[in-house]
């Protein structure tokens, strides 16, 4: 993965695989504290203790189509390379929270990348999921939620040219944030 926005896309796809219908993505950037924090909270089926213990093992996966599960271990590696770490809180039946921290100024911290494109892909590709996104950067806040946006659509789909327009208008606000 080249940047953090791709890791976010990957981890949220896991949430959706786990049956999540509500996903919260929170990013917190604080230059004074030299900290970058990414948190992904879902209401998917969660993990029991045994699964949770193995979740970061690249040779463990719940999938049946292949034998490795690299997503979370790659994300943890990215955090550790930048003097941070990744933690998972999860409870079977209740959902999962993934939290990754990074030293903001660390030379090996991957760039954020194209967050707009990640949100675009997630929202368009998963119309049944409610996404909320909060980005707090040096005291400034960007907030969005797909429930409100959906009301502006003719059908509940973002994957029509009209839906894309509505979404683009909203996500354009992230430009230069």
């Amino acid at each position, binding site marked *: *993965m080249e940047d953090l926005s791709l890791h976010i*896309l*990957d981890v949220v*796809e896991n949430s959706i695989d786990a049956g999540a219908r509500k996903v919260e993505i929170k990013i917190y950037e604080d230059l004074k504290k030299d900290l970058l924090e990414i948190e992904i909270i879902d209401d998917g089926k969660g993990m029991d203790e045994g699964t949770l213990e193995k979740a970061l093992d690249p040779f463990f996966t719940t999938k049946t*189509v*292949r034998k490795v599960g690299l997503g979370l271990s*790659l994300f943890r590696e990215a955090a550790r390379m930048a003097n941070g770490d990744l933690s998972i809180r999860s409870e079977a039946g209740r959902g999962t929270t993934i939290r990754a921290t990074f030293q903001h100024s660390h030379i090996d911290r991957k760039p954020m990348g194209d967050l707009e494109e990640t949100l*675009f*892909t997630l929202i368009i*590709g998963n119309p049944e999921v409610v996404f909320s996104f909060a980005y707090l950067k040096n005291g400034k806040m960007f907030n969005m939620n797909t429930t409100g946006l959906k009301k502006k659509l003719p059908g509940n789909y973002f994957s029509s040219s009209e839906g894309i327009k509505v979404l683009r208008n909203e996500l354009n606000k992230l430009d230069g944030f």
Partner: protein
Amino acid sequence: MPKLTLKDLEKIREKARRSTILREGAGKAKITVHMGTCGIAAGARNIMRALVEEVERGGVEDVILTNSGCAGLCSHEPMMTVQIVGGPPVKYVDLTEEKAKEIFKSHVMGREIVKEYALAIGSEQTSTK
């Protein structure tokens, strides 16, 4: 306020009909971009962007774009599956943005399968849907 012509009414009817199709979840085509770790690392997000651009450019209202997990053919990513109503699902592999756009024009809009980029015709197993 200008008078509505018959043509305007037809346009409104067509627009309403298409959005109804969408509400019922039965667009004329469904494109599934494989968005597992392998797909994402290989550039699946750019494939999605290329398709979104085509939908926007053509003012298309009745194609459903969606994501799925890994199908186990990680070395062939990025991949997508195209299904036209009444037709079999076709899995396209080793995509680039250009190939995805070509498939959109030919298969999705023109119902012509692009055999050159297709791996298989028929349903598939993915880890999610």
